Every structure is written in C-alpha cells, then in structure tokens.
C-alpha cells in the first residue's frame, strides 16, 4: 500500500520545492523479508544542483565524503564544543550483516542510505532509524578480494541510488522502491577485479575505480551512464609505456635504493609489464566543477613486493592523477613513489581546497594523505607538489628493502610505517576556515619479505609477504595538519591502529571512531577530547552529519574491520543533543 499525502514528516522549505514520490512503508526488495515501518516518508529526487552545492548544505550529507571537494566538513553548527558533552544516542539500526562496516551514511532530506559487507543497501528514516527498504545484491559465484567483503557506501543522483559490488558490478536501484533498475558488469572478477568503494555521481555519469592491485589487474577509472549503465569512458591507470623517468627519490626526496641497471636489463628482456601492473583506484575522486576535472589517487603496482618482474617507475601507480570528467583523458599526474616495493599505495581520497603556494599566494589546491604518513599538498592546475607535511607517523628504517628470506628470519627487514600506513583508505576531513586537515593513522611494525612468482591469473600475487610482528608496535593517532605550512597542529595518540574515517563540523568539532569501539569528539582547534561513546564494536567507518526534524545528528557505522581484526558489529548509530 502506498501512503502519500499532504502531511510531511520532513521539515524545511527544501522538501517542498523538490519533486517528491512516496514509498510503500517498510518494503523489502531483492532479498530477505521482514518489514520495518515508517509512515509517510517521501523519498526526494536528487538534482545535480543539490550535489553541486553540497559543501554549503547544512541539512544533507550528499556524498561519501560530503561534497565534490571531499572535505568531509559538514556546515551544521547546532552541536558545538560547548554542548557536545550532552550528545546521546538517538537511534540504532541493526543491519542483517555482522561484518566490517566502512560505509559513510548518505542522507537526503531525512532519508539515509547505508551499505554493508556483502553488498546490502538499506534506506532508513534518518530521524527515527526505521527501515524503509532493504536491497541485497545478487552476488555472482566468483568474488576475489584481498581486504574484506566491505563496502564504503552508495551514491545518489536523480531517482536512483548506486552501489558497486564485490563481483565487480555496478547496480542502479530505484530510491522509492528499492528495486534494481539496471546492473552493469564493470570488469571480470575472476581476474581479481572487485569493488569496495562508493561510486561518485556527477553530470549524468557514475564514476568507479577498481580493487585488484594484489592480483595483477590493469587498473582503471570508468564512467557509466547514470540512466542506463552504458560504459562512457575508461581511463587506464597503467599506460602502455609505464616506465617513466627512472626516478630514484620519492616525493619527499628520499632515496629509494633502486637498482636501475638491473631494472633496465629486465625491461630489455621481458618488455613493459603494463598488462598486469596493478594500479587500482580504491576510492572516490574529487570533482572540480569549474574545470570539469576529477582528481584521484592510484594504488600499488603488482606484485606488491617483487619489483624484479616490473622494471621501471610503474606509472601511474602510487600517484595523484587528474583526468577530464567528460572524456577521461589525462590532464596531469604526480607520482609519490616510483617502483614501489612496500605496498605504499595511494588510497585515501583527494581533497580540493584553496591552499597557499610556496610564495604565499592562494591557489586551488588538491591534497592527499599517504600511507607514507605525510599529507601532500599540490597545485590543482598541474599536479605539482607544493609541500608535504611533517611526518604523522614514525619513519624508522623507511625504504629498507624487503628481504628475500622468510619473515621468521631475525634478519628479515622491519620497517615503519607498515603496509597499511600512515593513512590507509581512511578519508581525511578538512576545516577550510582553520586551514587544518585531519587524518587518522596506523603504526604497525611489520616484516617485509620478497619471493618471486609468475603471474597467477586471479590468485593473490603479493611477491612476498608483510606480516605483523607478534608483540610489535600496534598503535595509531589522529593528527591535525596546517596544510598552508605543513606543520602538525596537534596529534592525539590512540592505543590501536586507526582505520575508518573522520568528520569535521561547523560547530568546531572533529569526530572519529576507534577499533576498540570508542567514538570520540575532539575540539577541532586543540584536539581536546570533549565527548566519547562506547559503541560495542569497532568504529572503523567515516561519520556523517545531517539535520532532521530541526536537529543536528551525527551518524556512524560500528561494525569493526577485517584489516585490523577489530570486534565486528552490524549497527548504524545516530547521535543528537536534547
């Protein structure tokens, strides 16, 4: 039964001005049964102009990283440094899937979209937490992925919500009914292609990258037509000439101890390794609407640790890349680490913000927080590096080469940071008013060993192993960096490695969760902890904020995480003040 009417639960003039449609209360679609019940919630169409002004939208949370600049800054200021101590649970939604949760809740006019591991998608009443509908992706038999069955969220545009899946598909779901409209195959999962990222919706296009750098894929960013799922363009992250300039130093100027002569010999013998060179794109690109360019970062080369099979700089792995939004053609790039042997892929999503260049002039900038533990600040025009921050984590024994021996050998190489970083996939948050970028880091002592094996078609291809040193350092931190100077403003150490995400709000706060279940609010200027809550499972996901019923909410998933093996859960928790 469809229930619509003139009465609306959703507050505000914005709801009035949009074309609205109604949803049958508590509908289950594409999967398990069991209704929720939510009366009279109208699901709005999402216009491109709404998405364009997302950064100023204090009501909604319209994209995984808040807006096309990906600042994860929500302007609402009802919750402040003064009153955050009164923050309490408003509701809890328990999903059907108790496994890693990495989803950023998307909220549009009181309707929340969240995803779970194994590619479930829920629409919830953002004010009450009640389910509107539940969609379960019909998973194919072949799924190949390294780092957990997780999913980082959905994208909304028009009357559809988009989900990218572990079997490398892109699903478009009707927001009113929760039913599948179309599904496109992105790439062949049996070769190691899969999706855990949220798509980006812009200008009638749905943009996705891919996983698979652990399996010898050839990475890409693809654009699909938002209406019918047709492929519009593909940007290969690995060009046919991947060799580059034989760079011997990384972006921070450190010598990487390359044996260029040996590499040139291998190149002459075996040719360019581009076909299986890796270069996945783990997460959302940022979108510069003025120049119609997107900015993303590219993951590690394959195999991760064995450079002998892949001579050359391995372009464009471990790089910042910008391409044209309409055509997918390369605009500029900057490689952080050429011929990476340490799995230091670039995964944390880019942020667009005005920055001071080397002469103190304000220019459009683009930032990325690396597994290396630095925040890099670039000129958006040509991708050139303006500065890199002070290191956020230990750089002990950085660039020690992986040893061709077993991890158990006491002489096996150990180094910081470990293969997870620094900053892993966790998106940063940015407060442009304070010129501060906030990143969450891991510090894990790992041993690195290398062992060569030929390309194994769809099987794990690391070229060695990185393992946590039993009893070794396992810690993390939340760091605030002034991106105009590169200096660390404040840093709070955490007892466990941090992976998930962080949110900055107009009330002068920063929110981040930890693997031990604590979800905390920090003073954005000083890093003082002003509030905390024990969620009962690892809070390893980026938080969101929105307004509903005239009140500000903070919402976060507490489901744990496979990579740090934190306690698993199944819940979305929303907090508000009285």
């Amino acid at each position, binding site marked *: 039964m469809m229930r619509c009417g003139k009465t609306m639960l959703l507050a505000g003039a914005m709801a009035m001005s949009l074309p609205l449609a109604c949803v049958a209360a508590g509908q289950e679609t594409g999967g398990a049964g069991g209704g929720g019940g939510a009366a009279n919630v109208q699901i709005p169409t999402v216009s491109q102009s709404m998405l364009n002004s997302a950064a100023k939208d204090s009501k909604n949370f319209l994209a995984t990283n808040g807006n096309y600049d990906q600042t994860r800054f929500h302007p609402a200021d009802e919750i402040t440094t003064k009153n955050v101590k009164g923050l309490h649970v408003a509701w809890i939604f328990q999903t059907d899937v108790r*496994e890693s949760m990495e989803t950023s809740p998307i909220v549009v006019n009181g309707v929340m979209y969240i995803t779970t591991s*194994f590619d479930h998608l829920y629409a919830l009443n953002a004010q009450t937490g009640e389910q509107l509908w539940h969609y379960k992706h019909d*998973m194919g*038999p*072949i*799924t*190949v*992925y*390294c*780092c*957990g*069955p997780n999913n980082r969220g959905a994208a909304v545009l028009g009357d559809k919500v988009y989900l990218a899946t*572990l*079997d490398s598909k892109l699903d478009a779901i009707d927001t009113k009914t929760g039913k599948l409209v179309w599904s496109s195959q992105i790439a062949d999962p*049996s070769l190691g292609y899969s999706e855990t990222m949220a798509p980006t919706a812009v200008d009638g296009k749905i943009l996705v990258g891919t996983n698979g750098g*652990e399996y010898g894929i050839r990475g890409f960013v693809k654009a699909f037509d938002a209406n019918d799922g047709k492929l519009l363009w593909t940007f290969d992250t690995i060009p046919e000439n991947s060799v580059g300039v034989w760079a011997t130093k990384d972006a921070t100027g450190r010598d990487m101890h390359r044996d260029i002569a040996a590499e040139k010999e291998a190149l002459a013998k075996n040719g360019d390794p581009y076909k299986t060179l890796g270069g996945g794109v783990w997460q959302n690109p940022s979108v510069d609407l003025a120049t119609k360019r997107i900015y993303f970062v590219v993951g590690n080369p394959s195999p991760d640790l064995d450079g002998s099979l892949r001579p050359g700089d391995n372009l464009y792995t471990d790089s910042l890349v910008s391409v044209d939004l309409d055509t997918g053609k390369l605009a500029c790039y900057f490689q952080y680490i050429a011929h990476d042997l340490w799995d230091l892929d670039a995964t944390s999503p880019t942020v667009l913000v005005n920055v001071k260049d080397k002469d103190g002039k304000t220019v459009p900038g683009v930032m990325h927080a690396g597994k290396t533990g630095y925040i890099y600040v670039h000129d958006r025009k040509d991708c050139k590096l303006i500065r890199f921050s002070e290191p956020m984590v230990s750089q002990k024994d950085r660039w020690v080469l992986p040893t061709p021996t*077993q*991890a*158990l050998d006491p002489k096996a190489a150990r180094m910081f940071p470990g293969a997870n970083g620094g900053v892993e996939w966790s998106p940063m948050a940015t407060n442009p008013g304070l010129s501060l970028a906030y990143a969450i880091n891991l510090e894990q002592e790992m*041993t690195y*060993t290398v*062992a060569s*094996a*030929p390309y*194994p078609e*769809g*099987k*794990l*291809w*690391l*070229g*060695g*192993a990185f*393992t*946590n*040193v*039993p009893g070794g350092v396992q810690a993390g931190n939340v760091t605030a960096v002034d991106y105009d100077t590169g200096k660390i403003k404040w840093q709070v150490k955490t007892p466990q490695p941090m992976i998930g995400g962080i949110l900055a709000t107009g009330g002068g706060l920063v929110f981040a969760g930890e693997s031990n279940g604590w979800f905390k609010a920090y003073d954005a200027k000083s890093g003082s902890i002003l509030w905390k809550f024990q969620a009962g499972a690892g809070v390893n996901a980026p938080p969101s904020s929105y307004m509903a019923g005239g009140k500000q909410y903070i919402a976060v998933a507490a489901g744990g995480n*496979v*990579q740090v*093996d934190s306690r*698993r859960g199944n819940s979305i928790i929303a907090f508000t003040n009285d």
Partner: protein
Amino acid sequence: MRRLSIPLAFALTVLPFAAHAQSIEEKAQICTACHGENGVPLEQSPPVPVIWGQNLGYLFFQLRDFKSGARKNDQMTPIAEGLEHSDLMALAQYFSKKPWPNLRQANPPANVAALAQRANKSVVCTSCHQEGFVGEGTQPRLAGQVRSYLEKTMTDFQSGARGNNPGMTDLMKSITEQEVAALAAYLAGM
C-alpha cells in the same frame, strides 16, 4: 591408495565409455568415492577434504586449476581432465549447495588455540578467509575442515608443492611448523 584403487580405476574406465548425456548428479557420483556419500570424506593418505558446502567460487577455481594443471594431484588431475569445461561450474554449484558435514573434530587445548590465534594476528588470515574462517566466493571455508588436510595444505603451500596460489605460498612461509600444526587443530575444531 590401496583401499580405493579398484573402485576408482573402475570408475575411470567406465567414464570414457558413457555415451548418454549424464546429469550433474550422475557426474558427481564419482566424487563420492573419496569425498563421501554424505559428504564425510574417507580417511586416506593423502588426506581428502570436505567439499560439501564449500564456497562456490573456490570449488570452481580448484576444478579449473586441476584441469589446467595449475594444481596437481594424482587422484584429481585425471578426474578433472575427464570433465567438460561446462561441468566445472555445475559441479561446483552442486557441491556448494550441500550442507557442510560436522566431522566432530576435537577442540585443541588452550595453548594450541592461542598459538593459532597469534599466527592469525600476524598474517591476518581472516582478511580473506573472513571472521570465523567461513570464507566467501573464491576464498575457501577452513572452519571444520579435515585436520590432516589443512596441515598438509599449509605445508604444501609453504614448500610450493601446491603451486596454484603464490600469495598463499608467501604467507605460509611466514609461519612456523608449530603454527601450522596449531592452526590445523584450531580450524578443524571450529
């Protein structure tokens, strides 16, 4: 091998002469000789794994690899070579739908379990094999698998005797013999 050589040889001689189109159930009958009528594998050397209820993508990949030679096994290689490519997914689907048998293997003592868990913390096995070691898709379920098969598999990955997953070889080289034994006991008891 001695126990089963006669029925197996018989099955192998019968198969090529089958002129009518066999259903998947009929084709799967040959598997029961080692993998068991009710999914409980026969005890023999080398050990035979549970395949009933194993994950679909993994079963498909193994049949594919046996057929191509990427994975070698004296019993499985001739059987896989005798299968059509179209049979591989069908057989994988057939067995993945069966219930995983409870082999009632004992829980290991606490110190052995602790060693197994320590090894998992180091290599993070659960990042592919999932929490509870139930696997998904092309990553196999390990929980409740035959203990001797688990031990042999990890050892064969370590040595390269099992060659169809170099990533697993790299990871198994990172753990000790004692950890292999502990993991086998721990996983079998789940």
